[in-house]
């Protein structure tokens, strides 16, 4: 089974955001970067599917600057076979521009499955996976938390408000991963050593024209300082009174 996984390098979720000098991006000084957490579910799923099929290849594709090679190496250390870096000075805010570059790379790859995270935790788009599917004319199920594949067909489950949708599709397909799909493995030392020798192809990203620009990035307004109503259960009546008469939310 030949599987492509699209991954993105993002700031750690515990990062305290500072605005950069351009006023439109974050200050990356001292920021720890990680593999987008949702992409880790996609990588893990790809590895399990490859191994279950008794062979094949897991190809990790990332778009971004040279530093995105670290993200690819992390996936290779988990067990992916090779990587492709679509090099771009920066990742455009326009998800469709990114999706076009990924689709161009994946188009003639002969993949049975393309896996992505359901979204990146930095820009929160939820867009690239289904866009790639549309550009390639492939079936797509987003935010899946359960997957069954058999004989070229698949059934996936996705959480919706107040329930779960059970969705059928045929391969090849594009799927985006939600938390809960699996438990991503930690790379073993052996895997980390092996990853250094695995091939990573670097080529320029065939980005689409960016037609959505970030004009500014700011911090949200601080919340007005709150107060400690009191200590212990005796403070409850006063809290209820405040919620009723001051906050008016009861």
């Amino acid at each position: 089974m030949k599987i492509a996984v699209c991954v993105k390098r993002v700031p750690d979720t515990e990062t305290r955001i500072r605005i950069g000098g351009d006023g439109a991006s974050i200050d990356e000084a001292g920021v720890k970067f990680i593999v987008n957490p949702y992409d880790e579910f996609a990588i893990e799923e790809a590895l399990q599917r490859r191994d279950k099929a008794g062979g094949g290849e897991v190809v990790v594709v990332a778009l971004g600057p040279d530093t995105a090679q670290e993200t690819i190496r992390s996936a290779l250390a988990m067990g992916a076979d090779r990587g492709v870096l679509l090099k771009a000075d920066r990742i455009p805010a326009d998800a469709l521009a990114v999706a076009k570059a990924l689709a161009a790379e994946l188009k003639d790859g002969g993949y049975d499955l393309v896996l992505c995270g359901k979204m990146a935790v930095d820009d929160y788009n939820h867009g690239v996976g289904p866009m790639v599917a549309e550009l390639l004319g492939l079936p797509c199920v987003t935010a899946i938390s359960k997957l069954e594949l058999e004989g070229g067909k698949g059934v996936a489950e996705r959480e919706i408000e107040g329930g779960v949708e059970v969705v059928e599709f045929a391969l090849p397909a594009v799927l985006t991963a939600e938390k809960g799909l699996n438990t991503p493995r930690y790379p073993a030392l052996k895997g980390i050593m092996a990853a250094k020798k695995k091939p990573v192809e670097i080529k320029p990203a065939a980005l689409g024209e960016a037609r959505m620009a970030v004009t500014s990035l700011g911090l949200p307004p601080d919340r007005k300082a709150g107060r400690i109503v009191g200590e212990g259960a005796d403070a409850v009546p006063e809290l209820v009174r405040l919620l009723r008469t001051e906050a008016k939310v009861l």
Partner: protein
Amino acid sequence: MANVLVVTEQRGGALRKTSHEVVWAARALADAMGGSVDALVLGATGVDAAGAKLGDVGADRVLVAEDASFDRYAPCGYAGTAAAVVTAGGYGAVLVAATAAGRDLAPRIAARLDAPLATDVTAVGFEGGKLTATRPVYAGKALQQVRFDAPLAVVSVRPNTFAPGKAAKAGAVSKVAAVAAARVVVREVKAAEQGKLDVAEASVVVSGGRGLKGPEHFALIENLAKALGGAAVGASRAVVDAGWRPHAEQVGQTGKTVSPQLYVAVGISGAIQHLAGMRTAKVIVAINKDKDAPIFQVADYGIVGDLFEIVPRLTDEIAKAKAG
């Protein structure tokens, strides 16, 4: 002059609350753009009744696409129908709600129409002939302003952000062709527990964290939620990772971002990724034994102490207050 198309969402033939919010958001945008608001309603035969009231929140026209396969969310059919309506002409923006279906649908429509997309926006505008939007990024740790350099853009609107008012527009209903297609088929929808609210859409959320010491104590959270009149139950990443609660309830950067009227955080210390997910709540109440917990820095009202004493008392007092 450019019109705005809203792709609405129905369940069981009834429009969802978020669809009214998006039509209202579209109204203000269309007025700024000098255009009108068309609301697309997709469903099985008879779904036109669901769109009859959309004039009240600002729809000039209601376009109804009926197909047996549109009873449930049909990703390809909905996207194809919306794209066909837009291609017929006159539109400058397509708006959907950033729900589970809308997040799936918006990128598909954008790709089909070769239009840029902004997701989960909390404001839309029209400045100097260009569409603009505000969107929380890094789970709300920062706000991004974006500008579209295209004649058509697709935007998904965060639920609970726009409160619909009264617009008294015609909302004239007409039929449009349904483009049924099925690369993927929603075979079944397994419903969650009856009456269970989703944290992302609820107006009151009560969340529990590691301070509850074990999954069995979430009954305290559920009872408080019940006393508050059917609030949704949320959870911190720590308790979801520990397997105490399902991921659907997780609030924070790798869970859901919520903006309820009231958010009650019980036994949650307030990691950065959690605060990011709930800081836009109107009123935040925190109950925690550690007076230095970061959650108190964003809480409007806090009580320091043992949650096992405080929460039952709070549940009783709220039940009393609600009854009286």
